[in-house]
């Protein structure tokens, strides 16, 4: 009991710098944005109370729903791909082969590239006319899609690109994999378990808290996708197929000076992410193991 209390105090102390930072620098803007979401506010004139008008307008705003659809579709595809690839690469990098440190570095390196450089680089890779990717596809006699200007291919291009940054998750998975008790794997092996059975019944359950963490970070990350599409697809082109929620929020706030409207969008997004995170936690309750015991 005493130990537990001590642990709690230590946890709170570790979280303290974050609490102090939040209350000093973020608490006021966060609270103010709730009020501003019920106002017409351009930053330059005092906010004018409009009640729930911003929220009502949003629900009748076709573009709002388009951006939700775009963001949802992107998240639904990019998130599982990212998680699966991350786990796969981490498992590969956890095996005992020569030059492991080199491979680990290689897979982590791309995630260090700044988002803006990444966007500019991939603009050339995806170039429909003479991009590297399409030249390669043409060599294989595959019809090369027009990644950047065909509405059907713009989102897949972004999903492909999102995998470029999978290195961050790989490092976390790798740390999780190294925590999988060797004795459990050995016991399974003695019982004659196949490689797949060991993965399915030992490695993955032991890795489940890490997977849950990455899934939640992935939900937040994919729903807030902004920098790369903002640079690669100005205005959400082609035909708004890459116009994501955060881009519309940004445009409302900083291009159209509709801060109240943008604040309402921000709060809707916050609630959506909160609900999805709670949902992920609830659904995972039965499948996530902490320290080898069901929670």
């Amino acid at each position, binding site marked *: 009991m005493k130990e537990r209390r001590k642990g709690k105090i230590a946890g709170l102390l570790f979280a303290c710098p974050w609490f102090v930072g939040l209350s000093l620098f973020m608490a006021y803007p966060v609270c103010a944005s709730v009020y501003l979401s019920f106002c017409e506010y351009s930053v*330059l004139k005092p906010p*004018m109370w409009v009640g729930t008008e911003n929220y009502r307008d949003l629900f009748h705003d076709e573009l709002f729903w388009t951006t939700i659809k775009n963001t949802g579709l992107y998240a639904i595809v990019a998130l599982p791909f990212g998680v699966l690839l991350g786990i796969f690469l981490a498992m590969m990098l956890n095996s005992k082969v020569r030059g492991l440190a080199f491979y680990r570095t290689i897979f982590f390196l791309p995630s260090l590239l700044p988002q803006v450089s990444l966007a500019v680089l991939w603009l050339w890779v995806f*170039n429909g*006319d003479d*991009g590297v990717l399409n030249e390669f596809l043409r060599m294989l006699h595959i019809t090369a899609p*027009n990644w950047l*200007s065909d*509405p059907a291919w713009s989102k897949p291009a972004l999903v492909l690109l999102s995998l470029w940054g999978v290195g961050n998750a790989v490092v976390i998975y790798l740390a999780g994999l190294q925590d999988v008790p060797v004795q459990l794997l050995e016991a399974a092996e003695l019982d004659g378990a196949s490689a797949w059975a060991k993965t399915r019944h030992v490695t993955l359950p032991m890795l489940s808290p890490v997977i849950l963490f990455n899934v939640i970070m992935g939900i937040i990350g994919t729903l807030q996708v902004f920098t790369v599409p903002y640079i690669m697809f100005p*205005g959400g082109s*082609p035909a708004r197929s890459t116009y994501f929620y955060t881009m519309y929020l940004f445009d409302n706030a900083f291009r159209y000076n509709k801060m109240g409207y943008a604040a309402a969008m921000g709060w809707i997004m916050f609630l959506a992410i909160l609900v999805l995170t709670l949902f992920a936690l609830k659904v995972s309750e039965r499948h996530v193991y902490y320290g080898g015991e069901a929670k």
Partner: protein
Amino acid sequence: MAKAGFTVPILAAVVLTAWWGTERITRTVYDPTRIHVTYWEKWTGFEFQGIEAVVNDFNKSQNRIHVDLLSISDVGNKTLLAVSGGVPPDVAGLWGPNVAQYADDAAIQPLEGYCNEFGVKASDYIPVYWDICNYNGHVYALPSTPASTALYYNRDLFQKAGLDPNKPPETLEELVAMGDRITKRRSDGRLDVAGFLPAEPGWWNWAWGCVFGGRLWDGKGKITANEPENVLGFQWVQDFAKRYGPEDVQVFQSGFGNYASPENAFLTSKVAMELHGVYMNYNIKMYRPGLNWAAAPFPYPKSRPDMKGWAIADEDVLVIPRGAKHPKEAFEFIRYVQSQKAMEKLCLLHRKNSPLSHISDDFWRRHEHPYIRLFDQLARSSKVILSPKMGIWPEYSEELNNAFEEIMLMRKTPQQALDYVTTRMQPKLDQYLERLRRRGEVK
């Protein structure tokens, strides 16, 4: 322990030396006897150097005011935030289409009082450039450098196609016919050279309806994006997607480099005819000096001979943000920029035409653009097209850009695309005006 005891002072010394050094290098000489006017300008590169030269001239011309010039990226947003924070610059260099939005948001000050005091009047300017600075009966800005547009065409590509390079198209129909003769495809069927592409450079997608005599709003409260003339304009645009194939156009365009780069489609002879501003000559000289080109008034629709000599006009403007500490001194500087000597120097350095109604012989003689008189003449035309002066223009133009994309991808007919824009923007304009009314800012 001993190691740490040695490292900390060394590190501290490095930090202090770096701080002292950078302070020494970057500190500007502050003259306490002068009033300091801060001026934020959007430009970098040669345009910034042009402005810097004029600012230096002003600072030397008197000993009362000193203008501190700073190049600021995304100057519009930063000016707005600085105004709201109560620390704006005294002068900001914005874009012409910003004026209405910033005036509605009370981010910039009306200048007519200063104009009267310092003798700045409408007749000093080419009407369109004075017009851009005016909104709702107030003068909110004064020009820095202006621009007008014309047809740039590649004489070599004309010759190769068996066309007379001295006879550019006069009507849009001629432009299409000549474009067809110039257009070439590769052996795999992909476009190699296009005669004309309405999406290149893509800065004035909203304007094609206006070329056919359309208006984008009635100037009061009605969005008119789907009026027949605008539909005709967008139909003309969509015909190119039909002619070349929407996918072929997209693939072809994705191979173009940036406007200000050697990979620009006009500079690489991928597109033979383009609508461009006066400043294009600089890029040609910079990146493809050997290009054999010419400029002419942009063709007009055969059905609208009254649109002969049309051009799009735009300009950079100087404004005094609300809350500026030294508005009068700021205006003295802006007034200086409006003098013929300073303005012509600035426009020469920016490689643009002058917004002033009177132009010196020296300006014509020294200007490096071989067709500078054409651009001046087009700016003076009564058929000049301006972006609409409305506070919601950033959002409206975005909608029109999207409509343009939809029709170029053949996802919508021009009528459908423009109907959608109208239906979407009308309630937004109504609400915008209603909110201004509720604030008591319009009747």
